[in-house]
Structure formats: C-alpha cells, structure tokens
C-alpha cells in the first residue's frame, strides 16, 4: 500500500497540472486444478497493474502498465500527455470526481485465507479424489485462494482502497454417464465447507447416471441457486443498467414504478452490507449506495454512474465501471430476496418439473427482452408428483427472461452465493412455462 501511494504521488507530479486518476489493481493468487483424480495444473501469479487516466481541457487519455521504475513512469505519463494534447475536445467528457465520504464496511480480508499453501490446496483436492476413486467416480475442479486489492486515487484528493481475501472450491464429479457439480466462493476459508461441496457433487453425479431423453417444450423448472443466478445476472445487466435504460434498449426503459416482473421477485444491489457484499466505492471513486431495483415485481430504480446519471438528471448511485466504459454502469452486488422453504419444498410443490443444477454457455439473443439461450449441465432431473423421478439428458433453453421472471411460482429461503459478473446472492426458484427448444445426446 505504501508503495502504491508513492507511485501515485510520482504519477501526479508527472501529470503536470492535468487532472489525473490512478487505479492500481494488486492480485496475488494461486489455483490448483485437478482432473481425472490428479492435479493437472498448479499455478501462482502475483501482479500489480496501474491504469492512469489524464484529463485536460475536455480531452482525455489512458495508459496502463505494470512497471513502476522512474524511467517507465516518465515514459508512460509523457506518452499519455502527448496523446491527450493531440486530440480534439470532447464536450461530453466529465471532469474527475471530487472525493466523497466512503462508507465504512466490515473487513473482508483474512490473512490465513490469502496465504493458504499449495499443500493445503493439494490436500483438499486429494480428499475428494480419494473418495471418488473408491466409488469409481472421477474428480475434477479447482481450489483457489489469494488476495486482491484495488486502489483508486486522483489529484483532487481522492484516495480509496479496498482489499479482500478470496477462496473458492469448485467441484465437478463424473460418474460414468452422470455428472454433478457444486461451487462456493468465500472471503474466509472457515466459511467454506469443502466436505459438503464434495459430497453434494458426488451424490448428484451418482443420481444423474443413465439419464433419459425427454421431448423439448415448455416445462415448469426448479432452478437451484446457481442456475437461477446465471439468469438473474443477465436480467440485471440488460435491465437495471443506466446506459441501456437511457438508450431505450432495455425492457425497463421509461417504466419506473411499473410492475414488470413477478410479485415474488425483489432484487437489490448492496455492496455495503447486503448478502453479496463488495467494494464500498465504484470505479469513479463514488460511494456505492444500496439500490432496490425491483420490489415485488415493480421496477424501482436502475443503477447509474456519473455520466448516465447526468443524462437522467439524477445523482450517481455508485455503480461505475473503469472509465471510460462503453457498457456504462452495472449492478455488481446483487441480492435476490429469499422466499420461503427449502429447495426440497420447491421440488415437493411441483407436479411435473425439470430440476436444473447449473446452466452452461448462456448467451443473450435479444437484449430488449433479455431473450437467452443456454444448456443445462451437471445434473438435470425430472420431478414428478413432488419427487425427483429420474435424471434426464441435457436440454437447451431459448427463453425471454422478462417472461420467465414474470412466471415465478416459488422462491426458496435458502440462498447460494454465486460468482457471476460480480457476486450474487440468489435463492432457488420455481418458474412456470420455461421453454426448452432442443435436447442433446448426454
């Protein structure tokens, strides 16, 4: 941190009167990857990357680099100034933001988690592999840990920093023609139940052997938290982002206060003390605020950075991405309000439904209706009369998320924490009339 402060000061001096913003991203992480019951890749990487944005008289330029010797800095900043001064003025360019108070948050750094050894990671992989070998299963996955830190400073007095440790265990188990999966991220290794994740994936793999083929068509679906989260994240990016809203390219455009989705759906973005917390400031150094996006299906707000907020004649909500951003702001710390009961209750309440563990290779087809496609993966089951009846072969869905999330039938009380574009806390959901357009051969 001290070194980053010193580098910032040197850069501000070299900026020679231009407005100057420095973003320093530090990452020191390691990942042990295993497949076929052996460690297949085992890596560690440490880096500090700097991005510097210079603004002067309606012109801007950005440089990024990872070497901070005096000669490197001098060359990088003088190059940026040269680019900047040769440009035409951009009348829409906003000056840098003055510092604003950043809310205090609970620490999300745990040294033990950041410094887990390669032996620790190998042991966790070995525990799973040993269990899998005994039952003829094949273990694949990762154990990952490290620390990341982001510092944002400018020569108007802003200096904000956020540091977090991270650990993630991701498990895929193959059992002949069956497969299962479980994954969980955490800031503290003590919050991660390796054994539970391993057993969940193993049991699911065993249960999904000998899948049957069913006909594509419209089905009620029970989406486990990870599957639901994959869809919610697209809904959020294309529905609750200020730029799409302003440009009229979103289903939410001009519809604040109107019910657009199921009354069972409430979503907030809350990096400060929500269920999926994160950095307390955005990439313009603005304090992140808690934003209720949807309340009982009614659109309450979209998120803004300074640029989209200006166009919408309101204040930034603190959701800027690194500037300049062609995407505009997006919500990165989403929490879907839990409902009632467990996943088992959602299954119990379904007469005939498809239970989805995970979606694979999801992609957007039409932004304005958030029409998407993707495949099921690692455990897809037919539910009949409130019970899991049999495993089924994977299916492709082609479905508008605006329609899908208007047909929520039930939401669970249990939530999963999922790493998507940002972090997302999401319960399991049961949706009616979900369109599967084809099936595959496994």
């Amino acid at each position, binding site marked *: 941190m001290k070194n980053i402060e010193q580098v910032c000061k040197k850069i501000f001096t070299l900026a020679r009167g231009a407005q100057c913003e420095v973003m320093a991203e530090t990452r020191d992480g390691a*990942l042990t990857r295993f497949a076929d019951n052996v*460690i297949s890749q085992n890596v560690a990487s440490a880096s500090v990357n700097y991005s510097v944005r210079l603004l002067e008289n309606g012109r801007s330029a950005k440089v990024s680099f990872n070497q901070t010797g005096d000669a490197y800095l001098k060359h990088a900043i003088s190059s940026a100034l040269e680019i900047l001064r040769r440009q035409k003025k951009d009348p829409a360019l906003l000056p840098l933001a003055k510092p604003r108070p950043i809310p205090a948050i609970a620490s999300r750094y745990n040294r033990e988690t950041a410094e887990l050894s390669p032996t620790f990671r*190998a042991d966790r992989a070995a525990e799973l592999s040993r269990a899998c070998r005994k039952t003829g299963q094949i273990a694949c996955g*990762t154990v990952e840990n490290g620390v990341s830190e982001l510092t944002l400073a400018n020569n108007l007095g802003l200096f904000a920093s956020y540091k977090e440790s991270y650990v993630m265990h991701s498990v895929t188990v193959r059992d002949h023609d069956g497969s299962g999966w479980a994954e969980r991220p955490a800031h503290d290794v003590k919050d991660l139940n390796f054994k539970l994740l391993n057993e969940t994936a193993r049991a699911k793999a065993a249960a999904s052997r000998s899948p049957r083929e069913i006909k594509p068509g419209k089905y009620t679906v029970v989406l486990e938290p990870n599957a639901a989260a994959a869809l919610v994240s697209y809904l959020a990016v294309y529905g609750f982002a200020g730029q799409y809203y302003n440009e009229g390219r979103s289903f939410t455009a001009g519809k604040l206060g109107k019910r657009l989705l199921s009354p069972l759906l409430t979503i907030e973005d809350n990096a400060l003390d929500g269920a999926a917390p994160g950095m307390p400031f955005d990439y313009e150094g603005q304090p992140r605020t808690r934003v209720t996006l949807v309340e009982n299906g009614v659109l309450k707000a979209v998120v803004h950075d300074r640029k989209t907020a200006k166009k919408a004649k309101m204040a930034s909500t603190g959701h800027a991405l690194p500037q300049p951003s062609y995407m505009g702001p997006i919500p990165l710390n989403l929490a879907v309000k839990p409902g009632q009961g467990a996943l088992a209750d959602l299954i119990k309440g379904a007469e005939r439904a498809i239970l989805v563990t995970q979606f694979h*290779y*999801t992609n957007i087809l039409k932004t304005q209706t958030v029409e998407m496609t993707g495949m099921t993966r690692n455990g897809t089951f037919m539910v009949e009369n409130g019970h899991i009846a049999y495993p089924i072969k*994977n299916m*492709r869905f082609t479905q508008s998320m605006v329609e899908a999330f208007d047909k929520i039938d039930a939401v669970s009380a249990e939530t999963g924490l999922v790493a998507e574009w940002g972090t997302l806390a999401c319960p399991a959901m049961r949706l009616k009339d979900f369109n599967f357009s084809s099936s595959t051969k496994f």
Partner: protein
Amino acid sequence: MFKLASKAIEVAGKHRVDFGDIRIVEDRSQYLAVKNGEISGLTDSVTLGYGVRVLYKGAWGFASGSEMTERAVADTTLKAIAIAKASGLLMHGRVRLAREPAYTDFWQTPFLKDPFAVPVQTKLDLMFRLDAVLRRNSKIRVAQTSMNFIREHQWHMTTEGSRIEQVLLSSGASMTATAVLNGESQMRGYPCSHGGQTLSGGWEIIEAMNLPDHAERVRDEAVALLSAPTCPAGVADLIISGNQMALQIHESVGHASELDRVLGYEESYAGSSFATTEKLGKFRYGSPIVNLVADATLPGGLATAGYDDDAVKAQRWNIVKDGVLSGYMTNREFCGRIGKERSWGSCRADGYSNIPITRICNLSLMPGSTPMDQLVEEIKNGIMMENNVSWSIDQKRLNFQFGCEIGWLIKNGKKTKMVKNPTYQGITPEFWGSCDAIADHSEWRLWGVSNCGKGQPGQTAAMCHGSSPARFRKVKIGMHG
C-alpha cells in the same frame, strides 16, 4: 532479456527438474473506441513480466512475476518448484513431454506499416468520420467504432536448450450501428461485431477493410432490420456466410478437437468433447467435402507464429480430412496419448502470467468448387445468415445454437427478402454431415477470433478461421423464446 531468463534455467537446473522454461513477455496494446461522437475508449497499455514452468519429478508447477531482477526470477522459479512438489501429492504417474529439438531462432509477424507509428489522431479522425455516417439516421441510437493493436514480444528459454525470440503483431477494427424503435433494437456491423475483425499484421490490415465504403450500408441495414419480418421457424436449407462460419468452425470443431478437453482435463470449466480418441481416423465428422486444416504457418492468422509456447515449431495438419476426424490440437504433455511422438504444436499462454495450455490453432474450412451463385440457385426453400450475434454449445460440443445479425430468405434459387433475428440449431456431426456444397476459393476469407476463453484461471487466446460460405441441408431455424 535472455540473460535474465537464464537465471530461471540455472535455478531449475540446480534443482534437477525434468523440464523447465521461462517466457518473458512484453505486451504493448492500444485500444481506441468512439461511441455516438464521443471517445469511449483510448488506452495504451504495456505490461512486462515472466512465467516460469517446471516439471519436477513428473509434476507441474508454475509461477509468474513482474519484478525484472535476477533475484525475483530465482524466487519465482523456487515458488514454481514448491508448487510442483505439492502437485506430486496427487498424481497417477509422471508427466512426460514429447520430444522436440532445441531451437535458437527469431521470428516476427510480417507487416508493412507499424500501427503504433500511425498517429492516434489519424485513427480517431477515421473513426469519427465513420461515426458521423453511421449516425445519419435518427433511428440509429448507438454507433460504435473501435480499433485495437497488439504487439507481443516474447523471449522463451527452456532447460532443453531452446532460445526463441518472437514478435507477434495484430491489428483490428470494427464499426456497428444499433437502430432502436419502440423498444426493439437491431445491430449491424462491419466487418463483424464482437470487437470486429483482427488479423496478424500492421496498419495495412485496417486500410484493406475499406471501412468508409461500408458505413452507409451498415447503417441502412440496421434500420431496415427494424421493419424486417422475423426469421421463420422450421427446417430449411442454410447458407452460412461472413464471420458466422468462423464461429461455427471454432465452436463445433476447434474446441471439440482440443486434446486436453477430449481427455477430460477441462471438465471442470469449459467441458469435454464428443470427439474422443478412439474415433481418430474413423469417425465421420462431416460430409466427404469437409476438410478442416489447422495451420500455425497461415499468413494473417492470429495463431500464426514460428513456435508455440511449448517451444514446438509451427506446423500444418488436418483435423478433419474428407469428412473424417484426423487430428487434434495438441501439446507436448498429451500428444503421446494418441500415439504421437511429436506435438502438432498448439499450446499457448495468455501473456506472461498464465501457464501454456492447449489452444485452438488457426483452423480453416478448405474451399470447395461451387460458384457462389450456384450455392444459392440450388436452394428451393432456404435462408442465408451472416455475421454472428450469439453463440452457445453444450459441454461436449454437440448441441449448438447460433444467432446471426441478418438473414435473407432464398426462394426457388433467388435471394429474396431480409429477415431479422435469424437463429439455427444443430448437432455437430449431423450438421457437418449435411454440408453439401462449399463455395470456391474466390469467396474464401480469413476471420479473426480474438476473445476465445478457456482455462482456470481464465485465459484469452486469439486465432483465425478461414472459409468460404457453405451450404447445409435441412437445418432447424428460427428458435425464439
């Protein structure tokens, strides 16, 4: 740089590793973007660092760093060895690498005009000019143009004695227009969307695109799509053109033929493959006219280099020959599993901080002998689709769905009206099996894919796919949610 690199080789040698290498990589990139008359991106980036890979008692370790001192390189090498020792706790047998001669060489992407020497203002002037043309219709709500230039300078040294220096250069550009009306949006791009067209080479790549000649058409087609009928649902004959053929090749053949995923080593993330090793040399992947060639020597290719990151010399080989599965993308670790004594050389890393992994090489569909007009004339009821919008494929690379920017219905041998939101689905071997004509060499184009994601931690790689438009019979089209 080789002096610094030799420190890693020295430390690895002292610890008697089976194999070790260091790649020092300096990446210079420039990205420019203009959106609706404003600069939305202008970044110059330079990173410098190194990655050290060791095979110690048959187990892998990798560590990277960016402090350019001998002491830091030595420490990073020791870290890689410590990680390899941990890997040794969970292994079946020792990893052995296929043999490859040691090389001392310098290789550079051929180019005519250094894109970094072209003034930023020249680039921005062109982009603002395009932007103005694209926005000359009130229905165009978003006009975007971009350019990107990347120069990667590598110094690669191995314990086997290879000492390879390479300078890889690429240049790319795009423009897109998005028309919006009554909450619906339609986008058209040139040469394509998803960041545009990138090839290896210099500023001459941008000049050859003739961007100003296409801006009006891009704008007008985006607006016309708003009022075009939706692609009908059903079964029809399909001609794929533009960069959509690149995506079709990439997703249904490129990834399916990566030997690491075929063997199950990508199961936890990207998935595996239906094209399993017992099928090599026997499996009918497509019709007999389908020939797909991997080529690391292809001029203009984004995966074109003198050597891969396993220090294997660039080669050209068949993945599908006369419709039959004939090869894989390989590295030195896994090629022995299919009985090959030498890797085909398709192992690459993203920058300095990632371990080299098996990647798709440049992979192209060889041209056929059918004139383009005949491709259309022989269709009674069909559709032509161009340029990719969305892609999705299952984890074994069988069931896919693609969406394209634009479609044109074909009736009784004639290209007729434009349709919007065209999509098609298929199962890989059945789909390639339905390919009954490929346009001739005069239509053959090389398309860049710059955003191929794979691996954990995630890595991005770039490669090219060349093809002429091709015709597929009885394809399921028009999926809508």
